[in-house]
Each structure stands twice: as structure tokens, then as C-alpha cells.
């Protein structure tokens, strides 16, 4: 049994108990969903958002975005591979996680996770990446006899056919997978929102808008992340950015962030106007425990400021260098804002008592399994994976690569 000595937990709980304001049910001292559950929706959100950005090229033929199509796909894959780890680490009995596949409870939103995740990873992402890179992998496998060529041969699943008909099929297949992938990406993150939105016991979570808000914020964070990686990559590789592409992505980001802002504003206005039993305690929550992370970090710095920057970029007088800087800053601030939003939902929902009479505290541990240290590692891991993927699977097509840039 993986039961660590609960002494550290008791110390944490004693400290959290000492910070309770008002009355809470005695079992509510413990914060059950910790920092790991904050980064889980952040990671899956980026997957869904990056994929939707990629689908603009394949399904909606937005040619300007073509240069970052592959980067968006690989970003989605890198974050997807890390996404289930925080959940797994958080379980009281990680060794029983397989039960979610073996005996899923059909009424549980969480039971869907295993299937949605596997479908999205195996049924959509890997297949799309494979079709996209098949030709190139075969070419690289044929280049020599070393270890790398054997790896490429294995990655191409030992397919050899690069006739025009086969390549045309790749193209069609890839488009088909993307078409199926769009609703799947919506499902992937919409259901994460549903996990929270369906909890009627918790009015901070229980909102019919929650899946939609999660989805929109996912699109925002995914687009911003690809933009961030694209700019960073050009700096590292000393390559010229495609400004037409960046401007187009910036436009999509602007639209997404406006819709996201409108939805979240609607949610708050609706709550205030309906003014239900929980409104008093939620008001206290927002004005005290969540003030910094919600009002300042999420809304002002993480949403309105980047919104302003993205509007500023669109004025004619801004030159390319400055635009690049503005895009980069906006994308970075958006990451901060979306991460804060996940925090405010997950942790915020556990900072007030279901008796509506008191507020709890969450004391984040610095080290250990459910700690800041683990969260930092898990937030860094996708970038490490992405670096490996980018070295293995170049974002430029073979013909572009040989041409001098």
C-alpha cells in the first residue's frame, strides 16, 4: 500500500485549519484537488487549442497559417503526452487507475476521461502526425544506414510507398482525421469543463457555461502557446518569422480572446444578477482569497492587457519588430492568465464551505508529490518533449529545407 506517513498532511491541515474564516464543515479543511488538478486542465486546454489552430490549415484552408501547421500539431502532441500524468500522480491509489478502463461507471463524467484521452491520442493526434510526416520519414529512412534511419523506418511503420497516388491519399486521410479531430478536440476539453460544471454541490463550478468557457479558454491558450513557441523557435534557430502567418494567428487569437472574455463576463454577470443563496460567500471569496489571482492576474494582466496589445498590433504604424515583441508579450501574459483561470476554478471552488458560512485556506506544498515542484516539472516536460519532437520531425518540408532561407 502506498500510504505515506500522514504526519506531513496533519501539519498542513493544522496550518490550513488555523486560517479558516467563519464556519466550515469539519471535513472541508483538506484541499482535495491540489495544484496538480490546476495544471491538468491547463495542459489539455493547450492540446485542444493547438489542434484547432492546426485544423484551420487543413479544413478551412487558411493558407497564411500553413507555416505553423506542423508546429501546432507537435505542440498538441507534446502537451498531450504529459496531460494525464498529474491526474495519475494525484490518485490515492495510482495502481488502480486501470479500473477506469475496466469498470467505468457510465454516469461519471470522469470515467469518460480514459476513453476520450485514448481516442484523441491514438485515434486523432498520432494518426494525423503520421500521415503528415510519412513521406518525409521514408525519405529520411532511405538517406543512410545509421541508427537514425532505422528509427525513421520504424516511425514510418516501414511503409515505403511515396508514389503520387500514395501521397494524395496521405493528404486526404490527414484532412479526414482533422475533420473528425475538431469535434474530438471540443469533446476533449468540453468534458473537462463538464467535470466541474456538473457538480451541483458547488455553485462556483456548477454552471452550464463551464464547458464552453473551458473550451474557449483552451483555444485561447493553445493559439497563444503555438505563437509563443513559434517566436521562440525563430530566435533559437535564427530564422526569419513569417509575419503574414504571425499576423493571421494574432487575429485569430484576438477573436478567441474576445469571445472568451465575453463568455466569462456573461457567467459573472449572470451569477450577480441571479444572486442566489451562494452569492454572498462567493462575493467574499472573490474580494478576498481570489482577488490577486482572479481580478489582477486572470482578468487584468492575463486577459485585458493582452487584448489591448493585440488591438494595438493591428494599428498600421507598428513595424514588424515591434509587432513580434507585442505578440510575444501578449502570448506570454495569456499563458499566465489562463493558468490563473484554472487555479481560480479548481482551487477557488475549494476555498469556500458548502455551508456558505466560511472560507478555507490552501497551503501549497513546495516539495513532495502534490507540490509546486511537481507542477513545475510537469509544466516544463512538454517543452522538453517538444524539443525532442522538433529534432526528430522537422517543421519544414524537405523541399523547403534544402532551399536557402
Amino acid at each position: 500500500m502506498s500510504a505515506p506517513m500522514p504526519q506531513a498532511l496533519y501539519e498542513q491541515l493544522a496550518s490550513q485549519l488555523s486560517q479558516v474564516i467563519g464556519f466550515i464543515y469539519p471535513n472541508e479543511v483538506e484541499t482535495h484537488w491540489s495544484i496538480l488538478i490546476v495544471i491538468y486542465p491547463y495542459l489539455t486546454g493547450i492540446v485542444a487549442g493547438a489542434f484547432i489552430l492546426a485544423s484551420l490549415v487543413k479544413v478551412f484552408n487558411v493558407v497564411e497559417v500553413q507555416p505553423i501547421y506542423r508546429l501546432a500539431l507537435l505542440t498538441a502532441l507534446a502537451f498531450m503526452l504529459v496531460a494525464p500524468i498529474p491526474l495519475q500522480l494525484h490518485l490515492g491509489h495510482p495502481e488502480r487507475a486501470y479500473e477506469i478502463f475496466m469498470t467505468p461507471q457510465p454516469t461519471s463524467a470522469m470515467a469518460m476521461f480514459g476513453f476520450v484521452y485514448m481516442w484523441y491520442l491514438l485515434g486523432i493526434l498520432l494518426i494525423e502526425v503520421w500521415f503528415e510526416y510519412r513521406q518525409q520519414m521514408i525519405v529520411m529512412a532511405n538517406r543512410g544506414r545509421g541508427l537514425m534511419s532505422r528509427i525513421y523506418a520504424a516511425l514510418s511503420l516501414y511503409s515505403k510507398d511515396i508514389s503520387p497516388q500514395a501521397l494524395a491519399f496521405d493528404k486526404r486521410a490527414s484532412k479526414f482525421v482533422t475533420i473528425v479531430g475538431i469535434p474530438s478536440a471540443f469533446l476533449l476539453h468540453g468534458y473537462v469543463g463538464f467535470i466541474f460544471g456538473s457538480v451541483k454541490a458547488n455553485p462556483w463550478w456548477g454552471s452550464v457555461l463551464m464547458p464552453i468557457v473551458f473550451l474557449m479558454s483552451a483555444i485561447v491558450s493553445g493559439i497563444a502557446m503555438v505563437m509563443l513557441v513559434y517566436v521562440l523557435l525563430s530566435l533559437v534557430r535564427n530564422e526569419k518569422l513569417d509575419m503574414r502567418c504571425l499576423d493571421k494567428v494574432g487575429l485569430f487569437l484576438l477573436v478567441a480572446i474576445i469571445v472568451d472574455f465575453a463568455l466569462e463576463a456573461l457567467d459573472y454577470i449572470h451569477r450577480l444578477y441571479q444572486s442566489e443563496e451562494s452569492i454572498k460567500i462567493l462575493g467574499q471569496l472573490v474580494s478576498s482569497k481570489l482577488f490577486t489571482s482572479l481580478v489582477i492576474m486572470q482578468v487584468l494582466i492575463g486577459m485585458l492587457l493582452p487584448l489591448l496589445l493585440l488591438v494595438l498590433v493591428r494599428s498600421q504604424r507598428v513595424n514588424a519588430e515591434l509587432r513580434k515583441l507585442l505578440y510575444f508579450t501578449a502570448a506570454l501574459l495569456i499563458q499566465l492568465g489562463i493558468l490563473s483561470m484554472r487555479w481560480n476554478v479548481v482551487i477557488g471552488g475549494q476555498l469556500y464551505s458548502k455551508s456558505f458560512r466560511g472560507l478555507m485556506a490552501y497551503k501549497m506544498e513546495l516539495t513532495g508529490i502534490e507540490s509546486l515542484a511537481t507542477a513545475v516539472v510537469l509544466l516544463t516536460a512538454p517543452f522538453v518533449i517538444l524539443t525532442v519532437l522538433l529534432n526528430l520531425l522537422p517543421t519544414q518540408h524537405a523541399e523547403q529545407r534544402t532551399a536557402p532561407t
Partner: protein
Amino acid sequence: MNKREFLTDAVLFFPAASLVATLASKAAGKELSAETTTGYDPSLHWYGMGIDVDKCIGCNRCVEACKAENDVPTEPYFFRTWVERYTIRNNGETTVECISTKPGPAKQAAPEDPSVVRTFFVPKLCNQCANPPCVQVCPVGATFQTKDGVVLVDEKRCIGCRYCIQACPYGARYLNPHTRTAEKCTFCYHRVTKGLQPACVEVCPTEARIFGDLNKLSDRLVRFQRANEISVLKPDLNTAPKVRYAQLDGEVR
């Protein structure tokens, strides 16, 4: 075959054969119903509990009995049942405290204070909802409702995801730090299926808790429900609690 070969074969044969025989009988065997094994038929019962708020004196004996009976960690963060004290003042201000985090009986809040309009104790426990949100959200079906209406957790199946704890509107669940699985009041299922009372009911000196079978018209609980004005906690959530309160103040959530 010489003697040595015969003996080695025999050593392997007998355990292997008995294993196959056991598996075969397991595969062929049907699940025995609870009735045939213990003489208890769960489908005949529908358990509930009545709580007479006026009778509770805040002695905390139910909490202590529950912790002892069910191996609940003694630390003040884990409770299957607890008692709250409400103090309502003439300016409308309501103060609530949990009196069970400290051992021993609690006093009523300064009854001589003229500003106090009402003060009373409210025992709380899992409401054994007929429409339980915790059962709905459990991803692996570890939390389930028995035929006799008790919500239980299978500690061998629970993965410790804590979704049920989030879904419970009453704060009735906790994660046991030793077993790393979710736990809650079971109505002392191990006792009631033997015809005994839950531990908290057994020790209550004022009979503020009434355990019974809602299926039986003659049951004490059914008579208690007939004789009193009954309310449940958070009725707007449609959880259909089977813990029924008499003389419950509207301030109690």
C-alpha cells in the same frame, strides 16, 4: 518412469490440478445472494435516520462512538458524524461552530445572554441520499447504493480520485489518510444487517437519533416522521436525503 521422475511429477501435478479445479469451480459458481449466506435480505429494507434537533444536548458521544466503531482517524479533520452548534441572536446574526473538533461535551452558548434568541445543536452525518450525487460521479463504481438504501464505498476498488468528496453537498466524506480511499458514514452497515443499531444511535443518551426502516409502517422512524414536522438538508439539490430532521431551524444548511 523411475521413482525420482514420478515424485517430481507428483509434486507439480497436485498443486496444478487443485488450482485448475478451484478456477473451474469459481468460473462455474454463481454469486450467492446475501440472503442465502446470512439469512438477511437487503431488498426488504429501506433504511433512514430521524434526528430530533430539540433532544440533542451536544454531548459528542455519538461522534466518539462512531470514531471508535469505524476506525475513523482521531485527528479533527475526519468525521463520519459531527455536531454543530447554532446561536441565533436578536439582531438576526447566526453563529455556527462544530463542537466535535474538541473531545467531550459542549455547552450551549451562554443561555443567560439576553441577545441570544435561540441556540441548539444539530447532529450531521451522511444523508444516505436516495438520489446520491457521489454515486453518480464515481468513475469506477466504487461508491454504490445498496438495495436497502445505504451508500457505501468499496475500499478495494476506490482509486482515491476524490470526485465523490467534491460532489457531496453536505461535506460528509473525507479521504482516509491511511487507506488513501474515500470514506463516509455507512449507517454502521456491519451492525444494522445483524439487527443492531448504528453506534451513534446506540450511545445517544437522549434518543435524539432514531434509526429505522422506512419500508415498515410500524417502524419507530416512520412513526417519528408522522408525529413531527420533517425537513431535510438542502432539499433544492434534489438529493432526496434519508436522514430526516424534526424541528430543524431554517438557518441550518
